[in-house]
Every structure is written in structure tokens, then in C-alpha cells.
């Protein structure tokens, strides 16, 4: 069934057992993401040392796609440099829009199934948009 494309095993797994839930110790950068149309609302909690994301956590509420995406995000970018993390965010956003990923995104590629469901794209991208804003600029992310 086409749903299995969307709710892949790895997504359900991250949803049921979220990784890195909660604020990190020594948090010095946060990224807020909101999708007011559905009430998705999350905070990325980051400890940045120099150029390195040494710890990444998240908290908030959202649908399975959004929560799994946030959970996968923390695993994917922890330990990366700011520029690497931002490049990842762009790649994931492209993936979710239905484009072929240029680099290997590991388990995050499970989000590719979202591309077929336009209305869910913003659920999947919200954490990544929040990440971009946290590292890149100011303000609050929205995928409305």
C-alpha cells in the first residue's frame, strides 16, 4: 500500500522511539519551527563549540513525520560542522520535494516518500527549516 512509502519502518521507529528528545546541556543555539496550520511546534536545542554541533536535541509536538524527521535530524547532524549541517538541510529539503539526493543521506532518505504527499512536505521539512534558521539567521521558521 502506498502508505508504506510514507510511513516507512524507519520513520515509524523514530516516531515510536524518538532519539535525543529534550534540551541538550550547555545549549547555546536554538531553532524554533512552527507549522501553525497543523500546530506542529518544535525547538531544536544545539550546543555549538566553535564550528561544531557537538550536541543536538529537540522537543515539541508534531505528527509522526515531523517528529521522526526531527529525531533523524539530531542523529544526522550531531558532530558535523555548521556548513556541513546546512548543506544537509538543503539536501533533505530537496529530497522531500522529490529531487534525487546528491549525497548519501543515510536513513533520512526514508523521507523521500513524503514527496508524493504535497501537504505533508512541510511536516518533514519543518525541523530542517528550523535548523537552517538557527544556524544561519534569526527568527522563527515556518513551513506554512
Amino acid at each position: 500500500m502506498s502508505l508504506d512509502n510514507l510511513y516507512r519502518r524507519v520513520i515509524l521507529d523514530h516516531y515510536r522511539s524518538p532519539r535525543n528528545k529534550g534540551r541538550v546541556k550547555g545549549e547555546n543555539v536554538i531553532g524554533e519551527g512552527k507549522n501553525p496550520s497543523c500546530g506542529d511546534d518544535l525547538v531544536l536545542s544545539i550546543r555549538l563549540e566553535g564550528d561544531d554541533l557537538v550536541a543536538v536535541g529537540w522537543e515539541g509536538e508534531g505528527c509522526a513525520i515531523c517528529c521522526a524527521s526531527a529525531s533523524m535530524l539530531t542523529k544526522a547532524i550531531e558532530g558535523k560542522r555548521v556548513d556541513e549541517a546546512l548543506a544537509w538541510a538543503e539536501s533533505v529539503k530537496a529530497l522531500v520535494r522529490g529531487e534525487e539526493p546528491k549525497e548519501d543521506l543515510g536513513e533520512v532518505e526514508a523521507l523521500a516518500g513524503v514527496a508524493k504527499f504535497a501537504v505533508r512536505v512541510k511536516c518533514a521539512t519543518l525541523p530542517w527549516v528550523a535548523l537552517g534558521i538557527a544556524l544561519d539567521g534569526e527568527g522563527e521558521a515556518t513551513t506554512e
Partner: protein
Amino acid sequence: MALGVSLRDRFPVLSRTVGDGKRLVYLDNAATTQKPVEVIHAVSGFYQESNANVHRGLHTLSEEATTLYEGARKSLGFWVGVDETEVIFVRGATEGINLVAQAWGGENLGRGDRVLVTVGEHHSNLVPWQMACKRAGADLILLPLGEDDLIDKEALARELERGAKVVAFTAQGNVLGAPEDVSGVCQMARTAGALSVVDAAQAAAHRRIDRDEWGCDVLALSGHKMMGPMGIGALVGTKTFLEGTPPWMGGGEMILDVRDRDADWAPIPAKFEAGTMNVAGAVGFHAALDVMRALLDEGMEDHISGMTRLAVDGLKARDGVHLLAKGEPHGVVSFWVEAAHPHDLSHLMDQEGVAVRAGHHCAKPLHRRLGIQSSLRASFYGYNDEDDVEVFLGALDRARAYLL
């Protein structure tokens, strides 16, 4: 005409399938209703036979179009028990309420004036008042709802005593679905000298409105929620209200005379209808009212009540499912499910053909008070039946199980 399954042939979209061949179980009627063939044909018939711009034309097509357009106005006026000049065509309830908040509010709201709405309002009957109050320096007060989901009359009395210029409220909420005591509220408003503005977007989909029985100054409704086309609705006001309110949009048709720097306004209703209106929409709306009359005669409201009760009972019997309504909802059941996000549930249920709505349903203040971000909503109409409710409950169970 009979209700439920026997009606489905007349609503073409209900014959379609969803996903891998699932029958469509359309339970998003509070968002918009489906259209019967009569309405679809009225719209295409207009374009095939009589399409023209109305009013100023002296040729046959224009005369025909004018007659059809004004015929729709007459029909709606008759339907809600008012004179046809008291019917202003607009895009929908939202535009109607903005007209009141901006045109009437712009002239009548001032610093320190108080505007009463309820915590259960759709954003369309809240945000326009927020904007009008901000502009005027007026105060917006959100009335609480009681245990029956209806306006708390004691709170209303208290607030009216402190003085209020407007009481704007919904005759039936799109989340809680409780039919309000409209005439009671309007009478209290009137006695206190406040303008009563009724958001009838949902209520008008479920019953014939009698404006005078309600006793409101003005009400707004949307054709698309009453089986009519999109892009047409009405603001219905008393003559006194409409004649005393300045026009809102300027343009063609709403003028009596135009000089270089000023203009005289046409009498109502034209004063409020600037530019080319949605004539085909009005014609389709007229056809929808005829279908509505027939369905109500067939007992559509009992039918809908029955389905609502079945859904409410079914949901209440399930662990971890919480209804938003404390009182008795009609036509719409909103609920949330522990440990399952409405988006996921709605998406999974869609795979079984079941169309329900997930989100805040344009009622954020209400959701915030209930301590939730969003909810699921199933809403019923004449073409649904008990079987649809069963499919809905079954799909919900399977969606929950999938996410566990």
C-alpha cells in the same frame, strides 16, 4: 428524494474512488459540502445559455442574466425570511463579516468601545474584529462558553452591562457543533444597544433560517457549505443596518452618480456590490437552495443527528479518545486521540477512503483553551449514512493500531 445512499447518485463526486479503489466516504462537510447535479448544471447552463454581465445591459442575454441573478437574491431572501433588498451577495461568510467589521466598524467603533465575540469563533469571525478593534482602539472581549458549549449568558450579561457595541457570535460552531440560542443572545444584545452579528456559515447548512426569529442585525453565510458553488455567499442585514452603513468596496454598479472627486451611492443592495459579481455562482446557489428545501423536507436534520450520535457513541466507547464538545454536537464531531497526531490519523484514514479533517479548524483560541494543538473532525451531511460512520470508526481503529 431520500437520504443517505439513495442520494449519492445525485452528487457525482461520491461515485469516485480514492487511493487503490476505496469508496469515498466524505466526512469533511463542515469544510465544504459536495454539489448535486442540479447545482453543477445550473452553473454550466448559465454559461451555455445566458452568460452576460448584469444590470446595465439592454440586450437579451444581459436581461436574462439579470433576471437569474435577481431571482437568486429573491430566493435567498425568501429562504431566510427577509426582503430581497436585505440580501448582499459576497464571496462567502468571511467577506460578509469583514464587510461589517470594516464598513460598519470603521464608522462606528472608537477608542475604548467594546466588542464581544466568543472563544469558540472561527477565525473568520475573530480576526476581522481583532483588526477593527486595533484600528479603532477598541477592546475585544472573548466570551466563555458554558458546559453545554453555548454562550455563558451570565458572562454575556455582565459584559453587556459594562457596555458593548457589538456581539458577534456563531450560530453553530464548526468544531463543537452546538446550535446556539441565537434569538436569546440577540435579544440580550439588542436590549443592551449592541449590534448583533451572527456567523451563520455552519447553521445555514443545517436549517432554514428565519432572520426575524433570530432577531439579529446582520448575518453571514457561505453558499459552498450549503451545496452551492464556491465564491458565493451572502450578508443579510436589516434595512436599518444596511442603509445606515457606508459602502465598503467602491466601483461599478454600486453608484448612483459619480463625479470627479465624489460619488452618490446606489440604494441597497447594490450599494454593497461593487464590480462584476459572481452571477453564475448566485445561479448555482439558487439551485442549491431548492435542493436544500427538499432535503430538509425529507428529514435531513434527523438523519444527520442520528449519524452524529452514532459517531459520538462510537468514539466515547474507545479508550484514549476525547471529544472536544462537552454538550451535544450536531453534524460535526471533533476529537483527539492520545499518542496519535491528527495528521497521521487523517492521512492513514484517507487510505481507506475516509475524508476527515485534521488541524485547528480555524479555531486556535478554542484549541488553546482545550489544551490541544489540533484535532480530528468528522462532519456529516444528507448523503452520508450509518455505514459511513462504521467505515469511519473502523478506519480510525486501524490507523491507531498502525501507529502504535
